[in-house]
C-alpha cells in the first residue's frame, strides 16, 4: 500500500438494526444489536442497552431512525 492509504485493521465490533414495527414497537420499531470483539460478546448487561441506541438515533426520528444512506440501485 502506498502512503496515505488506510486499510482495514483489527476487528472491533459488529452492529445491526432489524426492522419489525410490531415486535420492536417499544424500541422505535427496530431491534438493536452490538457484539464486540472476535468472540462477539453481546454489548450491555441487559435489554436496557437499547436505550443507548435509540437516544443516539433520536435526531433521525423523521428518517425512521436511520443514519446511513444506503447506496441506491443494483442491490
Amino acid at each position, binding site marked *: *500500500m502506498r*502512503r*496515505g*492509504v*488506510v*486499510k*482495514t485493521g*483489527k*476487528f472491533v465490533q*459488529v452492529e445491526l438494526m432489524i426492522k419489525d414495527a410490531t415486535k420492536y414497537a417499544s424500541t422505535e420499531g427496530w431491534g438493536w444489536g452490538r457484539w464486540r470483539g*472476535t*468472540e*462477539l460478546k453481546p454489548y450491555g448487561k441487559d435489554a436496557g442497552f437499547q436505550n443507548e441506541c435509540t437516544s443516539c438515533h433520536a*435526531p*433521525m426520528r*423523521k*428518517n*425512521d431512525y*436511520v*443514519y*446511513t*444512506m*444506503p*447506496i*441506491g*440501485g*443494483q*442491490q
Partner: protein
Amino acid sequence: MRGIWVLGCALAIGLAGCEEGVNPRVVTRFNTDAEMTGNLPSNPLAGGVITSWIDRQGGTMSTMFGNDVAVKYARGSADANYPVGAVLQVVTWAQQEDPRWFGGNIPKGTRAVEFVTVTGPGVTEYQRYEGSPLKKVAGVQGVDPASRAAALMGMRAAVMP
C-alpha cells in the same frame, strides 16, 4: 417581563417551526450519488466483502468484493493463489461529507470498478471500468494490468468473526 414573555413566544414558535419543517439532511433517501451506472460484467454489491481501504490523499474509498469462490478462499488463505472461478471486484468511490454525521465521509460518485477473474491456473484477467456511465477502459496509464491484478489478489481479507 413583557419582553421575556414575547421572547418566550418567539422561541416557542421557532421551535414549533423546527419540529414541523423538514430538514433536508434527514429526509429518507438512497445515496444515489454512489450508484453504479453502466453495464458491468457482474454486480459487485451482490458479492461478499473481502476488505476495504481509504486513500486519504486521493479522497477515495474502496471496497473489495468477491464471488463465493473468492470470499471462501480469502477467508481461509494467506496467499494469493485464488482458484479458478474466483472473481474479485473492487469499487472505488470518491468521498463526500456525511450530512448526517459530522466528521464522517460516505461514498460519492464511482471512480472505478475493477474486476480480477481467475480464468485458469495462474491465469488472470483484469478489467477496469470508469466514467458515468461506467465504461470499460484499457487500464491506468503507467500501471501494468497484470501487476495491478496481482496487487489486488495479494491483499489480505479483513478479519471478520
